[in-house]
């Protein structure tokens, strides 16, 4: 009881939030059709992971976790740039962004 009202938010809440974000990302990835939404779901998952990194970094007073977050953000930025470029290229070629329709590689 005390822990809930103390200054410090307990670790479990951060982790639950992180897991919730990640799960939302997965669900979004699996059920959405629009490629951009799918893409955003990936960002959501990455941020869920980032949150747990930051949490543990704070908990254990280890700077490593924060450095990982920077790496993840950097990769995510690069990925966003490439991914959006691909999405634009796909849209130009196929005039659709529905993932079910983008199936040229299928046998």
């Amino acid at each position, binding site marked *: 009881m005390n822990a809930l009202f103390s200054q410090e938010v307990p670790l479990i809440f951060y982790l639950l939030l992180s897991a919730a974000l990640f799960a939302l990302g*997965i669900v979004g*990835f*699996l*059920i959405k059709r629009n490629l951009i939404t799918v893409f955003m779901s990936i960002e959501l998952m990455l941020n869920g992971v980032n949150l747990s990194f930051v949490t543990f970094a704070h908990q254990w007073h280890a700077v490593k976790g924060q450095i990982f977050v920077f790496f993840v953000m950097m990769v995510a930025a690069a990925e966003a740039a490439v991914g959006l470029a691909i999405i634009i290229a796909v849209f130009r070629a196929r005039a659709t962004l529905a*993932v*079910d329709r*983008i*199936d040229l*590689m*299928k*046998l």
Partner: protein
Amino acid sequence: MNGSLHLWLIPLLPFAGFLINGLLGRRLPKALVSTVALLAPLAAFLAVLGSAFGMFGAMPMLNLPYTETFGTWLNIGALHVDFSLVLDQLSLIMLLVITGVGFLIHVYSVGYMAHDKGYARYFSYLNLFLFFMTTLVLAGNALVMFVGWEGVGLASYLLIGFWFSKTNAAAAGKKAFIVNRIGDVGFLIGMFLLLANFGTLTFTEIATKLGQDPGWSGGVVTVIALCLLLGAAGKSAQLPLYIWLPDAMEGPTPVSALIHAATMVTAGVYMIARNQVLFDHSPFALSVVAIVGGATALFAATIALVQNDIKRVLAYSTISQLGYMFLGCGVAAYSAAVFHLMTHAFFKALLFLAAGSVIHGLGGEQDLRKMGGLRKRMPVTFWTMTAGVIAIAGIWPFAGFFSKDAILYSAFQHGSLGKALWFVGLLTALLTAFYMFRLWYMTFLGESRSPQVHPHESPWSMLGPLVILAVLSICGGWVGIDRFGSLLASATGPTIDPATAAGGKSLDLILSGIAVAVALLGWLIAHIFYKQKPQQPAQLAAALPGGYKLLVNKYWVDEFYGAVVVKPLMLFSTYFLGWVVDKAILGGGAWLLGGTATFAGALLQRWQSGNIRSYAAWLAAGAAALLLFAFIPWTTVLADIGIHLTQAGH
């Protein structure tokens, strides 16, 4: 003298020739190919001469046999084998014959093979043969000898099947190779037994160990000697493994001269002479050698009587003469056997090359019945061949007389078995003289039986070697068996000296006289049959149809082996190995593996839906499963289940 004779040069010079002509020969101009091909054996011959001078110049310093070791080959526990070459009088004689006659035959081949497409290939094989043959002869232990032994078999196979587009030649090559393998099994088992009983394969060490302990006799030594004899019989075409040599005549004629008359087939005789200590310790094995030799000599000579292919007559004659050498070894007259080996190399190489010249001049004709009257057309070939025929018939003072006489004399002095073998040898000499003069009359004398053919004398590159070999066939025996024997004495043991032996000098003279008389009788019969009364042979054949058929069909030995060995093996291979093992077990196994993979693939194919979200779902499920796997405390869970299961079992 720095103590090294550089023996490695002798085998490696021909090997260099093989590499150059084998790898680059097709791109090099023909003149260069010939130059390389001729330089290799010539250089080897000079190296042998150099070694000979080094050997005799430094005789007091060198302890014969002189050994050079080039590092360790095997060193496993008690087994220690070196790359060692050994030079003594025995290997020196062999080397001189191999490289000397080999060089002459290379020269001859330049003319004989001039128009062949495989010119460079031919000479690379020939040089390869010289490499292996010199290795065989120089080998200081049985394993190095075996390398040369197998190598000459390979070269022989390649050269018999040189014209491999001819079915007969390809089949003959295979036959030679396979029959030789049967003999090699004997050689191998002999080596294993040597290792097991003496712990070494080095010839000198075996001799020392045998000499130290006189208890070695009979028993295991006999078995080893008989195994080695089997190997020697395979290589030297003795009964019962002689069948490959007549077929080997499918190869080019110079090859028949070099490999299948003068050098390779004598390897068996050399091997027995090299291992003579073993044979000396086993009188039984020695008797077997003598009987095999005598039987082969007579057997092959009878077949040669009625053959009509000029090369086949010579092939059976070679088998017969090899039998003589075995006979010599078998009566412990190793130096006489090696002496005959040497003179035989001269006159048989000569006979084959002269036959090759005849075949060349007639445009490939090998049938004696279509020859005749070539004396005027091919005078050089005629006169050189005459020298060879007289030499092999054993008429004084040609080379064959001295060596044959030495063997017959030693046989006569070798107890009652020896006396019987002496008679067999004498009978063989009669037959030999007859069939050789028959060949001579049918080829060169009388009228041509194929008037439409216009034979021409061969080029000088072919006649030159003939003349040199003819001179050697005449003079080669004059070194005399006494001096030859004393030269070889340290390597092959002492020879019987007629002056002190039973019967004295007069017995030697009487035996020689009988031998020459028998040879002349053979000539006389041939003269009557093929010169005076040409219808006589056909009448005789008609009078004795059974005997004639037996000889013409070579005693049906090939057919017998075919029915008893080849056919059952083929049936076994076709039905058991081919159908049961190959098709059913191996093929079925492969089919099962392939079928399983195809079936599994067909099942798993459904996963490859092409739907990216299903992939993602599987990915997520997989990640979840991994996490579960990582976080569930399996050891505890399994232990619980285990306890539970054992309780349930009770």
